[in-house]
């Protein structure tokens, strides 16, 4: 089987995978980083969003082998174990931006990419339009929108490091 190496959450990792292995499978099964979820298989729901070289990407739509040498950040890489939460994670918790939690890692990773592209002062319309690639069935998005606006603002205050490398 072909080998693949990449940097995941700041650590070099490598493994042997079948050529058809998706990045999300490599993360979940080889590395046991199960915070990244699969919800749809067709790139519609966004539960699998990670950052690939600093840009949001759907890890169900990438082959692991395509990511040779890349820097990947998953939900597990946002906060140091035992350390404070990333402001966007904290904002989701503070604003009840999640219920069952399944879409949440993808939502948070997508939210950080919205901040990267659109800045820290986000209005409701922008957030709703930019969340087009992520589906939540629980919250009706009301509190997710609030959480992203609050998280973006908190990141702007420089209270913590930015997520996107």
């Amino acid at each position, binding site marked *: 089987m072909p080998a693949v190496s990449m940097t995941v959450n700041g650590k070099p990792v490598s493994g042997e995978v*079948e050529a*058809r292995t998706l990045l999300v499978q490599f993360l*979940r099964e080889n590395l*046991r*980083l*199960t*915070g*990244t*979820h*699969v*919800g*749809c*298989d*067709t790139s*519609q*729901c966004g*539960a699998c969003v990670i950052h690939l070289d600093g840009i949001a990407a759907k890890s169900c739509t990438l082959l692991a082998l395509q990511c040779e040498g890349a820097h990947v950040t*998953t*939900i*597990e890489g*946002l*906060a140091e174990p035992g350390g404070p*939460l990333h402001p966007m*994670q*904290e904002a*989701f*918790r*503070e604003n*009840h931006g*999640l*219920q*069952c*939690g*399944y*879409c*949440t*890692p993808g939502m*948070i990773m997508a939210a950080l990419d919205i901040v990267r592209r659109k800045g820290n002062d986000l209005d*409701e319309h922008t*957030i*709703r*339009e930019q*969340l*087009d690639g*992520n*589906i*939540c*069935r*629980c*919250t*009706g*998005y*009301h*509190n*997710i*929108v609030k959480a992203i606006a609050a998280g973006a603002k908190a990141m702007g205050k420089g209270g913590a490091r930015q997520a996107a490398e």
Partner: protein
Amino acid sequence: MSATGIGAAVRRKEDFRFVTGNGQYTDDVVRPGETRAVFVRSPHAHAKIKSIDVSAAKTMPGVLAVLTGSELANDKIGNLICGWMIHSKDGSPMKMAPHPALAAGTVNHVGDAVAVVIGETLAAARDAAEKVEVDYQLLPAVTDPAKAKSGPQIHEVAPKNTIYEWSLGDAKAVDAAFAAAKHVTKLDIVNNRLVPNAIEPRAALAEYDAGTDQLTLWNTTQNPHVSRLVIAAFVGMAPEHKLRVIAPDVGGGFGSKIFIYPEEVVCLWASRKVRRPVKWVAERAESFVTDAHGRDHVTHAELALDEHGKILALRAKTIANLGAYMSTFSSSVPTYLYGTLLSGQYDIPQIYCEVDAVYTNTVPVDAYRGAGRPEATFVVERLVEVASRQMGLEPAEIRKRNFIKTFPHQTPVIMAYDAGDYHASLKKALEIADVKGFGKRKREAARHGKLRGLGFSTYIEACGIAPSQAVGSLGAGVGLWESAEVRVNPTGSVEVLTGCHAHGQGHETTFAQLVSERLGIPFENVSIVHGDTDKVQFGMGTYGSRSGAVGMSAIVKALDKIEAKAKKVAAFMMEAAEGDIEFKDGKFTVAGTDKSAAWGDVALNAYIAHKFTGAELEPGLKETSFYDPTNFTFPAGCHICEVEVDADTGKTEVVNWTAVDDFGTVINPMIVEGQVHGGIAQGVGQALLEGAVYDKDGQLLTGSLMDYTMPRAHDLPSFHVGMTETKSPSNPLGIKGCGEAGAIAAPAAVINAITDAIGTENLAMPATANAVWAALQSAKPRQAA
């Protein structure tokens, strides 16, 4: 109110693990030696299985087994069942057809499983599944419920594909009321078929321990004990005490994870055969053709009124599509969860309802958020709104004239409403929605070529499911009480084991709030345990907005016992009479003295038992309660939807949403509002976007998230949520339940708003841009004011 007690918007205990990616869902559990199951499914809606050739698949690399329906039958694995008996109006029992976990003789819907491949890896199992050759003889199919009775017969036991012909109410009295009516409003309604689409796909992981003959199932289920009971007692997989069902974190349910499905049965069976753990995880396309769908009613409904707009009677005739097999609770949804709610919030003297449930060659249909109550609310609220328009009454006015004003109120369709104030929620909603300013907004919109409309929905639901004796008399195969065990540890911290199951509802937080308030101990010192039949005493699970009203009531009852026992311990500690012990804010005191004992000291003394003998008092501090409610609860409220329709394209934008709900006591307003938001989104989804479409051959045309439109963030506005409160007298906390309200209220509010905007009632759900545009073209446009 304490910072973490009842009524406080406490941040959730659950969230740390979810926002850090540490949730533990079924697919995150990995067992040593785990194998993967891939199902071979029918591509045809109705066909005879002539032969299945598994020889090529069996020789593929990494394949452990390829199993078929005939082997399942040889191993005497029983059928899946529907657990609620409905009798037809002629007294005959419902026609429940056999539902094997793997089809043997015929397949009855696209997605029906015919074989399973167990592979070392998912890829190996997938490759082999493609090598299974099934020779089908195609049979004609029927998918439209309105055509089911004249369609090809699907099951031998059910002539004309009819499962039951049920009725409720007094037909003659209703006919007489209609004969005397000054005005009659008639509607033909299709309640569109929905696909639940919890974002976590269903999954099952089964492990057989040959040493103990024990089976363990990790499963995406809302009710692990009921799952175990059915798989043990009806499927006959293993005795109940040899089967453990664990429901870890579950990523949304909305009803679809209540039911016992073929896949968990097959994984359990296969794990015993291959002596390895077997995991199956649905792909989304598989979810679409195997998760029980929701709704799918065809209804003709009529409302009789006098000259003042007072409702005299209502009648409805509904055909309910139950799909190819009867799912676990399918029979109850279009009957006792539907017909019994047709009185809405109104004092209606006479109601008559007929429901014909039919088989079709489609995915089974069962409870989906609201389950029967959204269908009933849609019928009632559309009838009332259309009647108000026909009679020239304001929509709020016709409702006020018909609201039930005194409680308890016995409806003609079984339910006895115990408490409510429908005027209060309507009044508050009118204010929040600024209904007075609507005319101005409508004129302003018209200047931009947009049609504005306002739609009301004053809904009611029956929750707190349910008094066991009552549901037993209506055909339920189970009791619907709930259990709780409260374990106080020697250091004073507390674990509560509940038979409810949380899959987004936040029980770990709200249940802990109750314990914190009641025992006066820190919120952090309380843990909620659920979702494991080996840990938790028997319980009925979570659905029907029951966990607050029934599950928390069980916790209250167990806490009552804990307090009583702790007072005995405190009496020995402080050498006082038990009757003189008072307990408040986590402290035991002796009346009329300055003696006191802290909660933690009493807990410790209960376990060290140094202050009393075993003859005087049993050591320990752990109590269990099984709470059976005395009635359903009746959450109710008023939702007002304001829309803007683009007259050129038919595209509808929801521009304003007001929800005022009466849920009785609210434990955590943040969580309750979140439940309302999510429910509204699902209701707006049904009204505007979602609809499962079958072609005439039984192919599901909306079989993926690329074809089936889920509500996304930009499809919805932010919501204005308000509350009124009348406490339920039917449980100790006064809780009514909040989980389904939004999904029940919303569809009628949306369609009432759009039809108000476009000036025609001829509009079916989902009201897509195309549908609204077509309705606009077919009607004479109403002059914008």
